[in-house]
């Protein structure tokens, strides 16, 4: 069970992007991602969208797969900037790791 945290979007702001709620779950980012790896990066974007903090930290290793080629952000029809969000999440994961 994943509990949502409405506060999370606010918390993430200090690490950068605040565009996850633009996403309407079309999956274009997954289709264009050269990693071709499950639902990467939409899954992480969705976790941000609903504020599933624990799931993000649990899956944090996935963040470092991203090469930041920028294709997802370029092709996103909603301007949700998945690449930018991943970058923010990296900062967030690092900060959370240091705290714990």
């Amino acid at each position, binding site marked *: *069970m*994943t*509990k*949502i945290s409405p506060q999370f*979007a606010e918390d993430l702001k200090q690490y950068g992007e605040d565009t996850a*709620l633009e996403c309407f779950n079309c999956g274009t980012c997954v289709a264009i991602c050269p990693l071709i790896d499950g639902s990467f990066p939409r899954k992480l974007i969705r976790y941000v*969208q*609903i504020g599933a903090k624990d799931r993000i930290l649990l899956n944090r290793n996935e963040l470092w797969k991203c090469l930041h080629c920028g294709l997802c952000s370029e092709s996103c029809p909603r301007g949700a900037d998945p690449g930018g969000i991943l970058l923010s999440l990296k900062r967030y994961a690092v900060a959370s790791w240091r705290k714990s």
Partner: protein
Amino acid sequence: MSDPKEKKNENSVNRSEKIGVYVCYCGGNISDHVDVEKVRDAAEKMPGVVVARTNSFMCSDLGQDLITQDLKDGLIDRVVVASCAPSLHESTFRGAITRANGNPYIYDHANIREHVSWIMHGEKATFKAEKLVGAAVGKAGLLEKLDPIQVNSRKHVTVIGGGIAGLKAALSAADFGLNVVLIEKTPFLGGNAAMLDKIAPFGEKASDLISQLAKSVLEHKNITVKTHCRLVGFDGYIGKFDLSVKTVFTDPSDHEQHPGHFVPFEGVETDTVVEEIIETGAVILATGFKSYRPDHGEYGFGKHKEVITLPDLIKQVGKVEGSSTLELDGRKIRSIAMIHCVGSRQIPGIHKEDENGYLNEYCSRTCCSSVLFMANKIREQFPDTNIYDFYRDIRTYGRGQEDLYDKASENRVVFFRFDATESPQVIPSSDSDYPLQVTVKDGLTFNEEIEVPVDLVVLATGMEAGDISDIVSMMKLPVGTDKFLQEVHPKLAPVEMAVSGVFLAGTCQAPMTIGEACNGAAAAAAKAASLLGKGLVELDPYVAEVDTALCDGTGACVDACLADGALAMVDGKALVTPALCLGCGACVAVCPSRAIDLKGWSLKQYEAMVDMIVAE
């Protein structure tokens, strides 16, 4: 069986000897499977036929010209066309006959496309086509010139229901010059629309729309509005209906109303009942819908006071002044779950049937847009109140409605998608800070279980047919399996009822938006105006006719008659009221002296058809 030639001699006085037969290729639709020329050759040899022609498209101007020319030349006096289904082109060919100054009822139609070439091939197909043409020729020989039944009609329409559709229908009909009576059972005009605050997608105030419309209705010189008024009796026929209505004026004060009982410090209560007959020409039904009421326990409804319906929310939020967090009954609402499709799109085996075994399998069409409109309104007015939207599917069809979804995304509304088999659960929250939580297997999060703590759950309840069973049985109205009133044809006759002279407006027909209800209402008014405007209604002449010389007055026909009032015994003889007769022929079958017959479908004509079918 008698030889058709013999039959011809027997009836030579009445029988036409100048029948024209016109056989259509229908491009290749017919001729690919039926040897059309062979059918023509056969037709030419049939008794009474003087000319038989073919054309690649008989419905084309060239094809129709063959018929009109032969009529004008005096070559023929009866017409048989063998082509597609009569529902498609019967009126076309009747029109051609009328243009040649002929009577349109000297016509018979053989369907050799749907009944032959589309379902069979080869020699069998040609054989059957010949038989069908033969039957039509047999009947055509005995066809008589008929005149449509003319009914003097009243330039008056009665609208039942004073909601937005009823108001619009009344106003449109009155603007067409008809006199209008609008009856409404409650003291108020506006119906369900009056329960709304602002209307999706553009945000006009419902009160403005209704006030404006009601003002025009109340001020219109052609319209009489009767509130507190119910239909209690229905009589008559298209152009001439007599509606019995009952108006009950009760004391509008707050105490419970019991006429005949003593009310302390007031006296014995009375009510004033006025019964009257409205003489009208057509009826527009605008009886509206009722909002779905969730079952006890459905998504926690009735169990938890924090679970309310969308109409409740609209009413409550409409009264709240602005602050950063929505407050209802003194409670701060930090987060709201809105659940779609409650009481709509129900699936057999998954959802619970009501006490009569009904499910609402249809989409209520307005709730998605209404939910998103409210979500936007709350997010914009109370930015610290979060909205979580749980949907099966979202359908924001129509102009300006898709924008509501975009706007909701912009307003940070979070969406969750559930499958009908795994609806969200509304349960007390594990988080002591919130009264409730919604748990859902979320399709957008890869079917993971998500737990959403909330202060309020809003159920997007749909529309159900209003309870008008009294009117339905009184007027013998067709009702669909969804319990809404059913039109004659969903596309080609969308506001007409099978009861002639009765029309539909608004949500008594199906769930629809206010705009669509007004469309329907204006269409119904236009239909009523075109029907009654001439002061004369023309009906098909295929009705029963009594030969009083043969009638023994057994009354068997009256007992067999399916249409109330169409047949009666007057001075020992059967008398037909043509405007009410359905032309079904039930009376013809039971008459022991063959004194009653159907015009245009007489027993003799049937016999002639059968004789031709069995002839070698």
